[in-house]
C-alpha cells in the first residue's frame, strides 16, 4: 500500500488557493453541478455507501446525519461547518482552509442542498484570522459565479453563508456550545433534548459538520471517487488527514489510506523519532484521547481496529513522545489544558478538573500518596458518568490510560 496519498489534499499545491478559476479548472464544483440535478435520495445513498464518518472526532455516520437533517421540516434550516479545530495537536482543518477553501465550501453547499438548508455558517476559530479572511474571499467569489446566494446555478436553490469567528473556547467545538457561540452568547452546552438537529442555531434545525467531512463530500461525486473508495478497509473506506506532531522527524499533515499501522505512520510517513531516540508513548485523537504505549504500534489505523484496542481515531491527531518525556509531566500539561477549557457549568467537570490538577501536581512533585490514586478513581468516575457534556465525560481518558499503561512511573512518584 502506498503510504501517503493526495486525494482530499489534491489541491494543496495550488499556486493560488484563493483562485476560483484554478479550482474550477482542476475539476472543482463539477460535483455540485452534478449533485444539484440528482434526486436527494441518491445523494444520501452515495454518502452512506462511502461509510464516511464525522471527521471532527465523534465519527457519526455522515450519510445518516444528512438524511436525518433532511427530514426536519422548517421554514429555515442551518448548516454549519465546524472549523473551531480546538482539539490540541490537530491542524488538518487549518491545512484544508488554507489550501482548499473552495473544496470545503463546495462540500458545504452540496450538503446544504441535500438537507434543504438555506443558511450556512462557517465557524472558524478566532486564532485563524488569516483563514477567516481567506474563506470570506472564497464566499464572495463563489457568490459572483452564482455558486452561492440566490438561485444557485439557476436551480432555485438559495443558500447564504457567512463566516463567524470563535471566541477562544475549546468547548465551542461541542455542537450546542457552538450554537450558543454563533448566537453571540457564552459557549456553554445546552440541555438536550431538544437536540440541535431540531432546535439549534437561533432555534432552527441545525446540521454541524467538520471541515474535513465536508471536504470529502465533493470527492465522492467526482472522478476521484473511485480512487478514494479503493483505499482503506471495508469498514473504514477511503483516506484520512492525520496531524502528526511531537518528537518525530517530519511532523505535519498527511493524507493516509486507512489501514496503515501506527508503526508505518510514525516511522515511514513521519520518518521516525527525532535524534534516533526511543519511542515511549503516543496520544491519539486529541487531548481527550487515550495514551498508548509501544504495545499498540502494530494496530492498524482504522475505526474497527482502534475500537477493538480501546483507542480512538478522534480528530486524526497523533502526538508522539520519546523516552526523554515524563508521562506524569505530560499528563499534567494535558490536565492544565482541561482546567483552562472547562466551561465551568457543571460540578464534576469544573471542580473535578481542578482537584485532578492539584493531585497530578503532587505526582509531579513526587509527594503523592495512595489516597491520591483512590481520589483519582473517585473523581474520574464521577466525571465520566455525571458531567453535563462530552468534554467532562472524556477528558479523563488520558489520565486513566496513562496510569494503566505506565503504572511504574506513577508509583515512582509516590
Amino acid at each position, binding site marked *: 500500500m502506498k503510504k501517503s496519498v493526495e486525494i482530499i489534499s489534491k489541491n494543496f499545491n495550488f499556486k493560488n488557493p484563493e483562485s476560483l478559476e484554478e479550482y474550477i479548472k482542476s475539476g472543482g464544483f463539477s460535483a455540485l453541478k452534478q449533485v444539484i440535478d440528482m434526486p436527494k435520495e441518491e445523494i444520501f445513498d452515495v454518502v452512506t455507501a462511502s461509510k464516511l464518518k464525522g471527521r471532527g472526532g465523534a465519527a457519526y455516520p455522515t450519510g445518516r446525519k444528512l438524511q436525518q437533517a433532511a427530514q426536519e421540516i422548517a421554514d429555515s434550516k442551518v448548516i454549519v461547518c465546524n472549523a473551531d479545530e480546538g482539539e490540541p495537536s490537530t491542524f488538518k482543518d487549518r491545512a484544508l482552509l488554507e489550501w482548499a477553501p473552495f473544496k470545503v465550501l463546495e462540500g458545504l453547499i452540496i450538503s446544504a442542498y441535500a438537507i434543504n438548508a438555506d443558511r450556512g455558517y462557517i465557524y472558524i476559530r478566532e486564532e485563524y484570522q488569516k483563514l477567516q479572511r481567506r474563506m470570506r474571499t472564497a464566499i464572495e467569489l463563489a457568490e459572483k459565479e452564482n455558486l452561492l446566494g440566490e438561485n444557485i446555478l439557476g436551480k432555485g436553490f438559495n443558500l447564504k453563508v457567512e463566516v463567524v469567528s470563535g471566541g477562544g473556547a475549546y468547548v465551542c467545538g461541542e455542537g450546542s456550545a457552538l450554537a450558543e457561540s454563533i448566537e453571540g452568547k457564552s459557549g456553554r452546552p445546552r440541555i438536550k*433534548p431538544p437536540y440541535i438537529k431540531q432546535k439549534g442555531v437561533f432555534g432552527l434545525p441545525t446540521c454541524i459538520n467538520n471541515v474535513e467531512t465536508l471536504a470529502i463530500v465533493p470527492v465522492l461525486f467526482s472522478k476521484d471517487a473511485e480512487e478514494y473508495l479503493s483505499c482503506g478497509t471495508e469498514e473504514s473506506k477511503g483516506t484520512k488527514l492525520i496531524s502528526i506532531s511531537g518528537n518525530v522527524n517530519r511532523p505535519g499533515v498527511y493524507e493516509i489510506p486507512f489501514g496503515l499501522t501506527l508503526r508505518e505512520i510514525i516511522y515511514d510517513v513521519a520518518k521516525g523519532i527525532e535524534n534516533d531516540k526511543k519511542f515511549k508513548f503516543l496520544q491519539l485523537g486529541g487531548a481527550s484521547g487515550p495514551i498508548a504505549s509501544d504495545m499498540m504500534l502494530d494496530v492498524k489505523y482504522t475505526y474497527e481496529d482502534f475500537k477493538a484496542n480501546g483507542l480512538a481515531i478522534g480528530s486524526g491527531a497523533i502526538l508522539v513522545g520519546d523516552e526523554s518525556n515524563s508521562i506524569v509531566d505530560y499528563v499534567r500539561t494535558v490536565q492544565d489544558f482541561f482546567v483552562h477549557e472547562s466551561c*465551568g457549568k457543571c*460540578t464534576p467537570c469544573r471542580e473535578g*478538573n481542578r482537584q485532578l490538577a*492539584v493531585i497530578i501536581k503532587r505526582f509531579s512533585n513526587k509527594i503523592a500518596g495512595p489516597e491520591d490514586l483512590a481520589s483519582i478513581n473517585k473523581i474520574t468516575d464521577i466525571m465520566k*458518568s455525571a458531567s453535563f457534556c462530552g468534554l467532562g465525560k472524556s477528558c479523563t481518558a488520558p489520565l486513566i490510560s496513562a496510569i494503566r499503561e505506565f503504572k511504574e512511573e506513577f508509583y515512582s512518584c509516590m
Partner: protein
Amino acid sequence: MNYCKVIIDKKEVSVPEGTTILQAAKLLNINIPTLCYHPDQSVKANCRICLVEIKERNSLVTACSTQVWEGAQILTNSKRVLDARKSVLELILANHPQDCLKCIRNGSCELQDICRQFNLRESDLSNIAQRYPLDNTNPSVVRDRSKCIKCNRCVEMCETTQGIGALCHSHRSSNLTVGTAYNETLEKSNCIYCGQCTTVCPVGALYEKDDTEKVWEILNDKDKHVIVQVAPSIRVSVGDEFNMPAGENVTGKMVASLRRMGFDKVFDTNFAADLTIMEEGNELVERIERNGVLPMITSCCPGWINYAEIYTPSILKNLSSCKSPQQMFGAISKSYYSEKFGISPEDIVTVSIMPCTAKKYEANRVEMKTNGVKEVDFVLTTREFARMINTANIDFRNIEEEEFDSPLGTASGAGALFGATGGVMEAALRSAYTLLTNKKLENIEFKEVRGIKGVKEAVININDVLIKIAAVHGISNVKNIIEQIENGTVEYSFIEVMACVGGCVGGGGQPVGSTLKAKEKRIEEIYRIDERKEIRESHKNPEIIKLYSEYLDKPMSSSSHKLLHTKYSPRNID
C-alpha cells in the same frame, strides 16, 4: 396526550410524555434530592446532585432534565447512585468554606440539607475553597462570593425574571464567576436592591444586610423610646419561619413577640398605608381634575423607585409624590407622635419590619428626614425578625396573641391590602371613587387587579368617565408600559408597580425558598383579613380621621406636603 409507563425503584407509574424523572418520582412519593433546581425557574441541570440510574443503560442521568420514556426503569437509591451523589457533593464541598456554625444560613441552607440527607461523614478531597472579599457596601444586600456554588438561580432571577442583569456570569472553568460586570460592587452595578436573589440562593452567598445587632443595642438603651411598625405582609409570612402553614395569619403572635423583645410601642404599617391612600387618592383626583401628569404611578415600592431613577428617569414625573407607608409612618412618628406624647424626636427610634431589602436603602435616603432626624432608623427584614424572635427565646407558635398599640395601630381593610399585588390599586380606588363622586362605592372589591398575572388591567366608571388602570408586579413587566408612556400610546390613568413577583408577599426579605405557591397562599390570607374588617375604606379609619383633624388639616395640605411627600432624581451610574 400520550402516556408512558415508568418504573421507579420497582414501583410503576403512568405519566404524560414530557414528564421528567424528577416529576414522575414525586408522584410516587420519592423525593429525589436537588440543589440547583427551583420549582419557579427553568431547569438548569448543572449541580448534578439529582443523579439517578437507568437500569437498562447502566448509566447515570440527572432527574430534573431527563424526560421519561415508555418502559424506563429507574433506580433512585442504588449503591451506584448513592456513591455518585456523594462524589458530586464532595466536589462541591471541596470548594466551599466549612464555617457553617457562623454562617447566616446555618439551619436554613440547602447544602447543609443535602449533607444531612446523604449522611456525609468525611471526604479525602482537599478543601481548596477559593476565598474572596465580601461585597457589603450597600445597605440592603450582601454578596459572599466564597460561598457560591454556581447554581445560577440568582442569575436567572436577576437577568430573566427581573430583567435587571446586575448579576451575571463571567469567565470560565474554576474561574467561573457568578457576580457583577467587571467584578464591581452591587452598588456600582445598577442593582435595584429588590433582594430577589437572596430569596433563591440555596446557600449563604447572597443575603440581607443584617441589622439585628444594632436593634438589640438600641432596645437596651434606656434613654431611647423604641417603637416598631410592621408591614402588611409580615403577618401572613413570618409563620413560615416557624414551620407554620404557608400564609397563616399570625398577627397577634407577631405583636406579642415584638413587645416581648422590648419595643415600647408596637404599631401597624397598615395604618400608614391608609394614610398613603388618603394622600395618593387625593393626588390622583387632583391630577385627573386639573389635567395633571397622567398616568400616575405608585411610589411605595423602593425597588421600583430605584429602577425608575436609574433606568428610566423620564418616568419620574409620573410617579406619585407620596412617600411609602414606611416613610410616612416614620415622618409621623418623629412629628405628630413626638409632639402628642412629649418625647423629643432625637429620643424616638423607629424600627420597621419589612418583607423587603430595598426598604433599608429607602430609610437611608438623605431626604427621608423629619425634624432633623431619620424618619425610620432601622429596617429589619422578615428573616431578621424571625432570627430575633429565636434569639429572644420566644416560643412563637404558642405565645399568646396581643393587639397593636394606639394611635398608630388601627387600619382599614384597604390598608391591609398593600402586601398583595393589586392591593394598593384596589385600596386607592375605594377612596378615590368616593372622593370623585361623593358617593359610596357599592362594590368595593376590584377582582380584576387581583391574582398573579404579570400585568392586570381594569376599567372603572367614575362619573361616567372610563378610567383604565393597571397593576404590574415583577419589575421586568414594567418595561412595556414605560415604552407606552414614552411614546404616548399608554391608555392607563393609574398604574401600580411592585418590583417583586406577587407584590410584597414575595419580597426580597421574605423567608428563603418562598415558592409561587406560598406567595399565593399569603395573598389569599391578605384578602381574608380585608374581608373580616368592619372598616374597609381608608378614609373611614378613625385614627386617620383624628390625625388629620388634630395635625395635618387635610390631604395635600402644606403640612401633609412637608411631611408625607417627596421628590425623586435620576441616578446615573456610569
